[in-house]
């Protein structure tokens, strides 16, 4: 039931904020903040109440809620949370609170409707991370898109309409492909077993002809790869990130992209293990391409926000690479990458937002020497730029390292190429710091440093990125069981690769991988 | 009888061809009326005497008069005829005609390959029987047709109603 509340509070808060917006302009902010905080605290209370994260057996849900929704179609309102969802939900709520705070002063018109959209995006994302019914999953998938579209289209910058279109069309088209695949799965499963249902645990056991499975997998993958985004489908992302308001960018980078990765991990691979393995080389190639191409483009940008956007492409390439490496180390890397990227890139976007609030441009050419006037911001920016390039001690390093390590076992060639991406990332990250904060000072009279609210936003992010870099143990533990669960079909040939020792002295308390065939998960 | 059938069929086709190729609307209508009368003869031969009479009374006698009435009110002049003549150059109608010819040929072919019908001779369906069907089996259909006519009536009345323009009283328009 708590899972329902998590979503309901956000949705209700959104509606309330919208209604309040008609009465008073500042109420929506407070309502939104209250709602996100309420959800967050509820979540925290739940998270800490779970006994021994990571100690659970694979396949056990930490919490579950199941109710019939449209029995005619075999659609259930099935929500469930495991360690993976838990982590991503945590990210969601943190980012949500930050997004509310970021928009505090930036948004001046239609405040109520703005917060309504923001809340519903968060609700949709939370729903995506929780849904265990494919229909419900698609439902939430779409619920997060529409408000995002409005967010970009109404409160974005100059070119917002074009960007909003692009974003919506890309994601919607790919979403429909996924929907078709879901339907196909539903019917094939229903016809063979006589049980027409969208329930994820049920469908896990679906037996599919190889060819069909491959096409269905592609249908799912289309949606997730576009969302991720991998290179040929990344076109929407720079525009959307650039034109979105800061909070929108934060949510886009911090959360929306993660839904793609989550989808791959949660649906593509467990539902179609064979097909996924067949497709793995291509997927990894795409991942590497994303890493290199994203990095190259990031380097070439003059628009600061666009630059940061392209770094996302590059970073998410690691996710794709890792997800198709099919081993636990790579997967752990992927999970940490999701979190770390969410935080680091989110923070960079916030910084860009702050800069833009101050000098009303995003053109790098018009920046420079900000360090002198805004040392606080400069330091923060440097920190996150370093995180982005993968400085050890920060979250991204752990993530990228684990990913590469895992990928190495799958494909040496791609891993080697992907490692080049690290070099590129250093180049563009440092370019940000150098061009924006160093160099000839810009003649701008009034450039206040980060204020209290902004520090308030930055502080948790800084803490989190350090925490991820220095002590990722709880995260790894939490994600371990679900990830093994995902990997179960591959476990046979995987054997136990043991525990990879980490340079920074952390040891992973990984459990022994199960060697028996994956058992059908009990849905109740 | 046979001669009568083929003759009237021939007349019907010829008159229809002429009807759709005339430049002048009234002439076309006249040919169409001839065609309808020939069809009435065909109906008669087919044993549908009632329908034959109705064809003449309502189709030729009322609906076509309505057409002529409309054309009289239109007062289409020589210019219209010239314009029709220009429109109806061969290249305009060759393609549609050919296409339709193909369609017709196809249908006729289909008709031909399905073999002769098994019914024996033409039986006269007397008006009394038609009437009994109309007011027995099809009574609701008759009611529907009545409402259909009502719809047509209301529609034609509304559309055809003339608007009297009174420029004088503060430029108000007044409906008649």
């Amino acid at each position: 039931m708590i899972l329902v509340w998590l979503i309901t509070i956000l949705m209700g808060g959104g509606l309330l904020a919208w209604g309040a917006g008609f009465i008073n302009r500042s109420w929506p902010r407070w309502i939104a903040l209250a709602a996100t905080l309420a959800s967050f605290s509820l979540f925290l209370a739940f998270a800490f109440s779970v006994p021994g994260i990571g100690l659970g057996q694979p396949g056990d849900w930490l919490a579950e809620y199941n109710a019939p929704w449209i029995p005619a179609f075999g659609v259930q309102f099935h929500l469930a949370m495991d360690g993976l969802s838990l982590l991503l939900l945590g990210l969601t709520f943190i980012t949500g609170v930050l997004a509310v705070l970021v928009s505090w002063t930036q948004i001046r018109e239609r405040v109520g409707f703005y917060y309504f959209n923001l809340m519903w995006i968060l609700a949709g994302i939370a729903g995506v991370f929780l849904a265990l019914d494919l229909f419900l999953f698609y439902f939430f998938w779409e619920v997060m898109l529409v408000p995002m579209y409005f967010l970009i289209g109404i409160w974005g910058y100059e070119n917002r309409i074009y960007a909003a279109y692009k974003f919506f069309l890309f994601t919607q088209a790919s979403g429909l492909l996924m929907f078709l695949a879901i339907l196909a799965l539903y019917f094939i499963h229903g016809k063979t077993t006589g049980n027409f249902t969208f329930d994820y645990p049920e469908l896990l056991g679906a037996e599919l002809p190889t060819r069909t499975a491959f096409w269905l997998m592609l249908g799912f993958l289309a949606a997730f790869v576009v969302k991720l985004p991998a290179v040929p489908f990344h076109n929407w992302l720079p525009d959307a990130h650039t034109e979105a308001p800061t909070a929108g960018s934060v949510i886009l980078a911090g959360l929306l992209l993660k839904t793609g990765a989550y989808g791959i991990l949660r649906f593509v691979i467990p539902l179609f293990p064979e097909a996924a393995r067949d497709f793995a080389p291509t997927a990894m190639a795409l991942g590497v391409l994303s890493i290199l191409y994203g990095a190259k483009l990031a380097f070439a940008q003059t628009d600061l926000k666009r630059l940061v956007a392209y770094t996302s492409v590059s970073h998410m390439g690691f996710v794709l690479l890792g997800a198709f490496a099919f081993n636990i180390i790579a997967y752990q890397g992927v999970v940490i990458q999701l979190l770390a990227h969410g935080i680091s890139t989110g923070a960079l976007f916030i910084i860009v937002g702050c800069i833009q609030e101050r000098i009303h441009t995003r053109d790098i050419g018009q920046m420079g020497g900000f360090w002198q006037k805004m040392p606080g911001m400069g330091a923060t920016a440097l920190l996150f730029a370093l995180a982005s390039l993968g400085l050890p001690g920060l979250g991204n390093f752990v993530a990228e390292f684990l990913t590469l390590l895992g990928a190495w076992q799958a494909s040496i060639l791609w891993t080697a190429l992907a490692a080049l991406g690290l070099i590129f990332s250093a180049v563009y990250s440092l370019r940000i710091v150098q061009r924006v904060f160093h160099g000839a000072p810009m003649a701008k009279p009034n450039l206040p440093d980060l204020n209290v609210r902004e520090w308030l936003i930055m502080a948790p992010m800084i803490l989190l990125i350090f925490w991820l870099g220095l002590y990722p143990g709880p995260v790894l533990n939490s994600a371990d069981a679900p990830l093994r669960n995902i990997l179960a079909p591959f476990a046979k040939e995987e054997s136990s690769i043991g525990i990879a020792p980490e340079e920074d002295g952390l040891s992973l308390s990984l459990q022994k991988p199960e060697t028996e065939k994956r058992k059908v998960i009990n849905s109740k | 009888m046979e001669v009568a059938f083929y003759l009237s069929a021939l007349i019907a086709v010829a008159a229809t061809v002429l009807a759709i190729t005339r430049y002048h609307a009234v002439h076309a209508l006249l040919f169409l009326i001839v065609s309808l009368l020939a069809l009435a003869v065909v109906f008669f031969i087919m044993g549908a005497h009632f329908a034959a009479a109705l064809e003449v009374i309502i189709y030729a006698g009322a609906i076509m008069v309505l057409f002529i009435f409309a054309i009289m009110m239109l007062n289409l002049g020589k210019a219209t005829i010239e314009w029709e003549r220009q429109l109806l150059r061969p290249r305009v109608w060759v393609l549609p005609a050919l296409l339709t010819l193909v369609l017709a040929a196809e249908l006729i072919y289909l008709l031909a390959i399905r073999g002769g019908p098994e019914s024996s001779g033409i039986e006269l369906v007397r008006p009394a029987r038609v009437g009994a069907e109309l007011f027995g089996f099809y009574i609701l259909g008759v009611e529907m047709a009545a409402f259909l006519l009502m719809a047509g009536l209301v529609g034609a009345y509304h559309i055809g109603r003339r608007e009297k323009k009174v420029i004088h009283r503060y430029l108000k328009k007044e409906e008649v």
Partner: protein
Amino acid sequence: MSSEDFRSLLPLLILAAASILLLVVIAVRRDHRLVYYLTVAALAAALAASLIPVEYSPRTASPLLVIDGFSLFYSALLNAAGLIVVVLSYTYLRPLREQMEEYYVLILLAVLGSVILAASRHFASFFLGLELLSVSLYTLVGYMVRSRDRSMEAGLKYLILAAAAAAFLLFGMALVFYEAGQLGFSGIGKYLAEAEALSLLIITGFGLIIIGIGFKLALAPFHMWAADVYEGAPAPVSALVATVSKGGVVAVLLRFYSEVDGYQFPVLALLFSIFAAASMLGGNLLALLQDNVKRILGYSSIAHLGYLIVAFLSGGAMAAGAATFYLVAYFITILVAFGVVAHLSSGEQEAEKLEDYRSLFWRRPGTAVVFTAALLSLAGIPLTAGFIGKFYIAAAGAQEGLWVLLFILAASSVIGLYYYLRIIMAMFASAKDPAQRIAPLFSGVGLLLVILTVALVWLGVFPQAMLDMINEWVAG
């Protein structure tokens, strides 16, 4: 005709009697308000009557009509749609100097024709119902002869094409009759089932009938009238064309096809598939080029009927249910959409250009949100009825393995998304003059639109009740 027959025919009788009563009232005194209230009362009564005689159904009240759950459900649906259109019309017509009383008579007759279609099980009632609907619509589409030139033009176009379609339909019926010697659906079905070899002629007959129906539904190769009619007709009439006229035809198509088991002809299935594909693609692609909201909705209706045909084509157990549910969803949605258009149009000035909707959100947020909901539903975004409808269609199609069509459906949905978004974007574009804020949606029409929108969302989130109802009434 027994009294039970009489009672089961009550919806039809109420509509028919009301139309005559209205004519009498008009003859005595022209009073717009009175006529309006009478029409609303009649439609409401017919709606209620459609829901009451359930216990008597199914009933073959006459050889021409059958009153069963299916026809009653459609009757209720069509009456409700008619009711909404009438409510929309009142404020729309009020500022006009046309005589608007006949308008209501014609709407009643159109609804009557459509209800007849939904109940018909015989070629005679099929054709008469269709024509009653069409003849009423000719005038309704061209109702603004005096104030809108385009209305007149649209009326004529509709008339010529619909009459040609009727000719095709009739010729097809004649061919079928020639072969089968039957005019009743069940008789034809029996003939088809018993005949060992079917002549091509009868299939050609079916083909011609389908062409006629395709015209009426504005399926793709025969869609040329649709956009012009939607644009030219007064906005409430466009809503009527989009709902009542389509609904009745879909109903009769479903019944006809299931009774004669038209699914046994692969040729016809192919024909329908082509229609559906062409409609989905053509409708959506053509809509991309438009700047007129009514035209866009017109083209989108072509596409939507294409979707519907996919459901219909699936032919399985789900076909009727899917098509019906989609129709319900589409009715609500398009009524909201045209309701907004009618609401914003003031008499002689139709709000139809995309420009008219620019920054609507800043001027009339309520209306804009309602319209947005409708457009999203048309686009098939979750939380709206359109999504569930599309899902149901996809489900029905997927069950029969119509993958190509479903793929086209998905692709064309994306194309469709583009122009729906265009309208939405225009509405949310920032205002040039934000000071101009009009009190939103506080009229009766506004209330109606809000109710419909709530229904739209309700169906999108909790469709189960409606699904149960459809299963019980239509499919059962």
